[in-house]
């Protein structure tokens, strides 16, 4: 049954405690994170490939690790209900995938606008364009401007760590924003991987709703009378300016998250072979494939490096500019048709003709290492960095 857990700081849980290696799926890694997150309430709605993780969270509730859990009626309702629970001062968790994300879309900017530190996992998959349940992360491109902090996990270890670190970042009083932890569905959720876990008899210290830039809605936290002249009602400059400044503050809060992300994630991006003149830049599981392609290319004598982007919002613009300053070519493999990461990179750096937005796979297609290698060589050829493939 339930293990007696001691509430500790995030530093003690994630950095000071000894870890033990286990061989688990990404879905199980979610449950292991939620078990240690001191979550009061989780609300679930089924969708592939998310469902298994929320089944396991339900098992945690049945064992007594969570105090409330139920299946909602659709994703919009679930995201509204976790919003309500969060406004009431509770620490919450939920998860969804692809079409569920789009179904709930209207809620995400409201989470951010109301400054609620909701942590949500997104097990990304295709949306109906045409219908696909297969791994794809196009939904991330659709969430870029919702005001949410967005972390992209490469593997089950990232997934576990980013959920727990996510609470630590999201609940900082100067941040206090929703945080999404994204993975490429199936590749991470439905495969087993080695994951290092801290002891299960430790959990995060409880959320303190009084350490918030907005009052909990409990009729115990002043102010009781919240506003007098609402932003929405008046068509005048003052109300527009009030609305705009609130909006700017949401964006500023995400900027203030950078230092906490740096501390907990060890940087918004990671660079392998920083002196390379050619980089593969990726996020999520494309990083793993990119790393294999890098090995193959380096074995052939090409000086290739790898940049793993961990935080999509806020985006590591300055870090990316610095890391790619001397690079001649940047190849961006992605698991979606839109190429949103390549667009982000192009917008962030100087001389963006260096960016090759390829390969892009979707609809359930995998991203073989050979495909990345051949795209890198084609791009080098086009740039005159290679005489022939």
């Amino acid at each position, binding site marked *: 049954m339930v293990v007696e857990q001691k509430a500790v700081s995030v530093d003690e849980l994630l950095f000071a405690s000894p870890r033990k290696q286990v061989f688990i799926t990404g879905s199980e890694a979610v449950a292991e994170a939620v078990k240690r997150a001191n979550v009061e309430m989780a609300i679930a709605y089924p969708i592939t490939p998310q469902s298994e993780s929320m089944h396991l969270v339900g098992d945690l509730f049945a064992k007594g690790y969570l105090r409330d859990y139920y299946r909602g009626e659709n994703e919009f309702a679930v995201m509204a209900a976790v919003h*309500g629970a969060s406004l*009431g001062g509770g620490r919450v968790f939920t998860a969804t995938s692809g079409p569920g994300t789009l179904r709930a879309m209207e809620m995400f900017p409201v989470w951010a606008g109301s400054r609620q530190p909701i942590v949500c996992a997104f097990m990304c998959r295709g949306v109906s364009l045409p219908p696909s349940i297969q791994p794809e992360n196009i939904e991330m491109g659709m969430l870029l401007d919702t005001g949410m902090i967005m972390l992209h996990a490469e593997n089950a270890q990232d997934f576990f760590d980013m959920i727990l670190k996510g609470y630590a970042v999201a609940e900082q009083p100067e941040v206090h924003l929703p945080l999404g932890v994204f993975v490429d569905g199936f590749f991470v959720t439905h495969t087993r991987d080695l994951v290092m876990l801290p002891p299960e008899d430790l959990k995060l210290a409880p959320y303190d709703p009084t350490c918030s830039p907005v009052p909990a809605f409990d009729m115990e936290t002043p102010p*009781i009378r919240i506003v007098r002249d609402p932003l929405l*009602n008046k068509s005048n400059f003052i109300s527009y300016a009030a609305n705009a400044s609130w909006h700017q503050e949401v964006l500023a809060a995400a900027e203030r998250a950078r230092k906490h992300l740096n501390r907990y994630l060890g940087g918004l991006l990671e660079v392998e072979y920083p002196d390379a003149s050619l980089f593969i830049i990726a996020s999520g599981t494309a990083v793993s494939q990119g790393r294999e392609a890098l090995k193959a290319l380096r074995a052939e004598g090409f000086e290739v490096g790898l940049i793993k982007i961990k935080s999509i919002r806020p985006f590591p613009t300055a870090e990316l500019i610095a890391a790619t300053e001397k690079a001649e070519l940047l190849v961006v493999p992605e698991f979606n048709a839109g190429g949103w990461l390549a667009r982000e990179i192009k917008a962030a750096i100087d001389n963006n003709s260096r960016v090759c937005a390829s390969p892009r796979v979707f609809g359930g297609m995998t991203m073989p290492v050979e495909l990345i290698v051949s795209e890198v060589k084609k791009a080098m050829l086009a740039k005159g960095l290679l005489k022939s493939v």
Partner: protein
Amino acid sequence: MKPGLFKISPGFEEVMPAEYRELVEHGPYGAGMGVADLGAFKELLEEHPLCAGCGLALSLRLFLASLPAPQDTVIVGSTGCSSLAFPQVALQNIHSLFGNQNALASGLKRALSLRFPDKVKDVVVIAGDGATADIGLDMVMHSWFRQENITTVMLDNEAYANTGGQESGMSPQGTVLYMAPKGKKFPKIPLPEIAREAGCAYVGACSPAQGKRLERMLRRAILVAREIGPTYVQIFAPCPTNYKFKPNETLTRLKLLEKEGVFQPKEYITREAQDLLNKLEGGGKP
């Protein structure tokens, strides 16, 4: 609300607006006020931006005066005319989006129950007919199916009034409104009956023309929601602006419509809820 929480910090007495001072000195928190006391205490709604003759404005005043424990009540609204008045209510209140009010209230009520296990925190949803019967109907009904301990109140002005007067599911059949240029094709959605069948332990239908009756129904609904399960109150008040009658006719029309049987007050009470009410009301004012 902890006693003494709502107060003015020393030195600020002169600076705070007059209506705030009145609220601190003569507000209804924990004072056991009701509709009969209107005029003798500072109301929770400070002015309102709704149209002249708006039945929702009066309903909202009566609603706020009827709350059995305003000091421990959080209200959840939705998009619509009533949401324009919400920011001027001296209770913590939430407007999230259009239609998600009951889903949000479900999470809120559960979180408050976890955080305050020894205290009653009333969560009351109050939204328009579009929010309740149309765009949010699935979430309204699922909160009833799930037996959430919340009260749902519909302000039925029979139209989408805030957006300029379109047909809603609660508009009467045959009415010509925007988006129903040839007249509405189907009757008013029978939400009180749907609520009864969907698991509401108490259902009431009333109008602001009879304040005491509205108060009785609302208090019953909230008291039953605390102990038993979901409850529903439907408040009938057609929109003078969009149904194009004079602002000073709102109440006389309501009385007339009730006399003619067009509007029928209703009460559906489960046996369990009736037993509870007998116990509570037997002892006088709840």
